[in-house]
Every structure is written in C-alpha cells, then in structure tokens.
C-alpha cells in the first residue's frame, strides 16, 4: 500500500500527469484511426522518449497501450469499423445497438465496463506483482531461458496464420537480436563487415520499419472511402444505459474482467483472444443466444471489459519477470532497456518509484479515459475526416525523426526503410511481425540465460530439464512447437475473424 501511495505521489507531479494524459489521449486517437495501431505509435514515439526521464516515458507509452482499447470502441460502435483488432467483437453487437438508436448506451456501457475492468485489472496487478516477483527471484539462468522459450512458443501458437511461419519469425527475431557485439565476449557478430552493425540493430529502426513504414505502404494500397458515421448522443445523459441494459451488463462485465485478466497474463494471449473468448462465454451462458450479433448488451459488455483487463494483465509478466506477453509489451520492455532499467523481480526494490508510478498511472489513466471518452466522442469521430494525403507525410516525417534521433545516423534510416519494405512483403505473405519484435527484444536476455546455464553445466543440456519447473516449461515448449507442424483444422482464429469483420464492415 505504501508503494502504491508513493506511486500516486509520482504520478501527481504535473509533468508526469501531463505525460500520462498525452499517452491516453494519443492512445484514444490511435484506437480510432484504422490502420495506425498501438505498435506503430509506440514504435514511432519510442526514440522521442530517450530524453525523457524513464518513469514519464514508460507512463506515456503505457497510456497509449491501454488508451487504444477505449478509442477502438468508438469506431466499432458508430461505424462498424474496428480501430484495432481487439475491438472487432464490439462491432458485432455494439454497432447493432447503435443502429437501433442505442449508440449512447452502447458507448456508455463500453466505457463504464472498460473503466471497471481496467481498474480491477490494475488492482490485481498491484496485488499479484509482489508475490510473483518474490517467486521469480528464485529462478536461475536455466529457468529463465525455459520461461522465455515457453513464452515464445505460446506466442507463436496463438499467432494468426501459419504457426510454422510464426516459428520462423521467432527465429528471425532472435537472429536479429544477435547482430552486433556478443553480449558476453563483445566479439562482433553477423555484421557482414558493416561497421554500423557492430552496435547491433536498434529497436527503433526495426520497429518503425516493420510497423510504421510497412503500414504506410499498406495504407496507400487501400481505396479511399468516405466513412459513414452514426450520430453519437449530444448530451452526457444520452450515454446512460437504461435500467434493463445496466442489469444485463453487470454479469458480463464481471466475467469479462476475470477472463480478460487471466488471458492477458498468458504470453500470446492478448486482448484479441480475450475479447473473442468472452464473447463465446457470454453467448454460451445467455438465455437468448439468438440475440447475439443483433445488439445483445452482453455481447458488448463482456468483450469490452475483457479487452481492458487483458491489457492490464499483460503488465504482470513484463514488470515481474521482464518477459513481455505480446509485441506491445515487448516494445515497452525495449523502452525500459533503452533507459537502462531491467524490469524483473528486483525492480520493485531497486526502483519502486518507477514500478509503482507506472501502476498508479494506470489508475489515473483509466479515470482520464472515462472523462475523456464520453463527452468528446463527437470530436474524436471528426479525426476520421483527416485524409490519408495529410496523414502519410506526417507519419513518414515522424519515422525519419524517430529513427535518425536514436544514433544520429542516416544508416538507421536506410535500415528502417529496408525493414519497412521487407515487413510489407512478409505481412503480405502471411508472416506475423509482432513475433519478430518480441523475439528480438527477448533475444539478448534469452542468449545470456542460455549461455550462463551452459557455462554452469559445462555444456550439459540436461540443465534445461533439471528441475520440475524447467521440465514443465520444456514440455509446454515441445508440445506447442510440435503443434506448429500439424496443419490447423480449427475454425479461423480471432485475427482471421478480425479481418473478416473488417472486410464485411468496409463492404457495408
């Protein structure tokens, strides 16, 4: 409790509060704009945070992450266009509610459900993190290596598209992380004689290229369409659900919160999976499943809550173990590392103001988002009127600034453009690039753990299956990697459905 109060003291400093506001505000805008995801935005802003103090930087970047979940709801309800993939399920019943004249209630239920779930999620993070950190402190290098391997395998298992390709991307992410000086002996590796690469490939050119530049190239190929927007309510009272809607929301919000948080903890689980699972659970539990897809309140309240608590849940493995659960938290881990901070079990003791500051900022950020979202819906929707012609040069200029400022090197700009083109091609052929970033960020810690473990055991690989914990993680890894070689026979996954709904919405 003391730590949390200290965190609030950090957040309520004017400058930190401003960065928290900038983060959640940007997150909302990014959530509204289709095509510009939180990954792209965090990647673009990452280098700009170099000059900021670490607490403010992480608070701002985290604000973007959880702010996106709110913003994505607005376009899903009013336009049937998910601003980002985790808002896809909201399109199904949220938009139908809006068509029936309940747009305000849909936005209100989503915002309140998101606030409740986000806040409970943060409370859970505050209470779960200390015991988990104490447990992780007992890990040796072999345990760490196996946790990371199992985490990477889980991410590839849950990825959309071919799991084999996901594994390949994980391999390439690890390989890209190995470029530059060897972390233990400082010998240059995989540099192909290029001096600039002896320092390694920086996160900024890689992330900005793979997500920022490749997204611009993709955006250009989309047809320009005028989007139709259903009118949001003009007064705050218009956002209030009626008694029946409020009663029907309580259970789904509670279930979505718990489910989302648990799924958020799992590497690769992510908000998309949480929303689809919550939707499936609510439909299963409902006495009127036939109403789902036609404006069922439960189909909106559950997934929206799961989305937000899942985002909070993803912070637990990041802060307590230094293991990101998805590509966005991998970028946040990168941000920590750039500022010389290694998140993990000792962060709570070594940098309590940072740890608790980030957690407290999530409470404050959730309140900001609730206050921002309802009254300003009309204004946010207007952002969609910004044409691509204006958006693209701004993104490219920010890419240039973000990439160059990392090392003051034009070579990084070349690398970013190369990664942008390669990223576009890889995405076109069904490769999931989020895994590249995740593996790249984990690569250095993973290699260090593997080599330390091998040095301890004098090369005996048995160290990786020498304790119940390592055996458990080894079994998980083996099963998940084995499944990558089995052709998928299941129904299309969440992200496949995301594409389908997005395509349907654009046709409509």
């Amino acid at each position, binding site marked *: 409790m003391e730590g949390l109060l200290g965190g609030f003291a950090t957040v309520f400093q004017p400058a930190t509060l401003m960065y928290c506001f900038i983060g959640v505000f940007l997150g909302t805008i990014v959530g509204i704009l289709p095509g510009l995801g939180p990954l792209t935005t965090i990647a673009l802003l990452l280098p700009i945070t170099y000059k900021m103090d670490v607490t403010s930087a992480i608070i701002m970047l985290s604000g973007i992450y959880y702010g996106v979940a709110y913003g994505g709801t607005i376009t899903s309800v009013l336009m049937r266009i998910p601003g980002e993939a985790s808002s896809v399920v909201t399109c199904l019943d949220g938009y139908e509610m809006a068509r029936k004249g309940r747009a305000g209630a849909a936005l209100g239920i989503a915002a309140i459900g998101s606030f409740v779930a986000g806040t409970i999620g943060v409370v859970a993070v505050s209470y779960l993190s200390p015991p988990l950190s104490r447990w992780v402190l007992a890990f040796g290098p072999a345990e760490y290596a196996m946790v990371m391997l199992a985490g990477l395998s889980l991410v590839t298992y849950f990825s959309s598209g071919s799991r084999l390709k996901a594994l390949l991307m994980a391999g390439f992410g690890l390989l890209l992380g190995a470029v530059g000086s060897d972390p233990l002996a400082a010998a240059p590796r995989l540099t192909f004689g290029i001096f600039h690469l002896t320092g390694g490939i920086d996160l900024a050119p890689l992330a900005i290229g793979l997500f920022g530049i490749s997204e611009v190239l993709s955006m*250009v190929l989309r047809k320009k369409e005028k989007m139709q927007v259903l009118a949001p309510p003009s007064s705050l009272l218009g956002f209030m659900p009626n008694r029946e809607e409020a009663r029907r929301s309580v259970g789904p919000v509670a279930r979505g919160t718990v489910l989302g948080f648990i799924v958020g903890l799992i590497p690769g689980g992510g908000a998309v999976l949480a929303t689809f699972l919550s939707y499936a659970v609510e439909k299963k539990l409902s006495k009127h499943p036939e109403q789902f897809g036609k404006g069922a309140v439960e189909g909106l309240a559950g997934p929206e809550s799961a989305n937000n608590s899942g985002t909070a849940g993803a912070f637990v493995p990041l802060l307590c173990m230094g293991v990101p659960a998805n590509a966005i938290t991998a970028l946040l881990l990168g941000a920590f590392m750039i500022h010389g901070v290694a998140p993990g079990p000792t962060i709570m003791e070594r940098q309590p103001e940072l740890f608790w500051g980030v957690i407290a900022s999530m409470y404050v950020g959730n309140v900001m988002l609730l206050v921002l979202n309802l009254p300003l819906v009309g204004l946010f929707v207007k952002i969609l009127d910004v044409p691509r012609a204006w958006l693209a*040069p701004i993104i490219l200029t920010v890419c240039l600034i973000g990439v160059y400022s990392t090392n003051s090197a034009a070579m990084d700009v070349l690398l970013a453009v190369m990664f942008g083109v390669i990223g576009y091609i890889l995405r076109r052929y069904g490769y999931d690039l989020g895994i590249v970033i995740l593996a790249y960020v984990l690569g250095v810690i993973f290699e260090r753990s593997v080599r330390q473990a091998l040095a301890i055991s004098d090369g005996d690989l048995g160290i990786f299956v020498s304790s119940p914990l390592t055996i458990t993680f080894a079994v998980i890894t083996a099963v998940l990697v084995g499944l990558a070689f089995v052709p998928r026979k299941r129904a299309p996954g969440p*992200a496949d459905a995301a594409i389908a709904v*997005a395509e349907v919405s654009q046709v409509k």
Partner: protein
Amino acid sequence: MTFSGARWTALGLFCAAAAAFWQATKLSRWGFDGPGPGLYPQVIAAICMALALLVLALDRGDPAPVATDDDEAVARYDLAGPQERRTFHIYLLALVVLVAGSWLAGFIVTSLAVTIITMRFAEGVSWRATLITAAIIALAGVIVFSWLLQVSLPEGPADLAFRALLRQGGLL
C-alpha cells in the same frame, strides 16, 4: 514446381538465414569459459534455415495476409487497382528520397521533398495546400523536436541556415 510470391519470400528468408549461418561459422562455438560467441547464432540460423525450407516446401497456396493483435491485415498489391499501384510506386520513391535526403540534404529539405512527393504527386493535392502543409511539417519538426525536445535531426545547408537565423534573432 512453380514459384509463387510466397515461395520467393520463403526462399529469401532461407538465403538470409544461410548468410547469417555462414557469418556465424567464423566465430568459435566454445571457449575456455563456456559457450563462445558463435554457438547461439549458429544454432538459431540453422533452425531458421530448416524452418524456411519447410515453409518453402509446404507453402503451396497464396496465403492471405494476417492481422495481428495490433494492426489490421496488410493491403495486397496484386489486388490493388492501377491508381493505387501508381500511388504505391510514388511512395516507394518517397522512401528512397527519405534515405538519400537524410544522408545528403538534412531534415528540412528531406521533409519538404517527401511531403511534396507524397501529397502532390501521389495523392494529387493542390500545389498550394501541399506547399503550406510541407512548410508546416518541416517547421514543426524543427521547432518541436530539434528545438524544444532537443532531438538530433539530420543536418544539411538549410538546417544550418535556419539555425543561424534563429541565433541571429536571439532565439538560440
């Protein structure tokens, strides 16, 4: 065996992994105090080569682009109309200018050139609107990032001249 774009991509990944493996073989796998710098990249590159070969062998179709947790599916070049393709090519040119400009011309000129290429030539925005937007973006970049946030930007003659102007006006 016909070579689709998907297969060319897998082949490209195989070649990249093979090149990395070849580079890594020059480093020692084991030293006096444990694993050497070459062990880890050799193992990872070998796994990548094997996986790329598997993808190459198994990827027969033309897979749909995937949407990840965080962004939507990429738009396909092969399905785009002639107008979108032309725009795409001009954007590629803008990327070339972005790289060359950051090397040779500095931030202001590069930013102006990229904005003009994308807005005027790719998107067909009027010259007036293009030039005003280009000037605003370049100016905002210099003032917000270079001046206020102290972020380093590529330097060219225009940037140096602008800074001299600011210094003359007592602003620096």
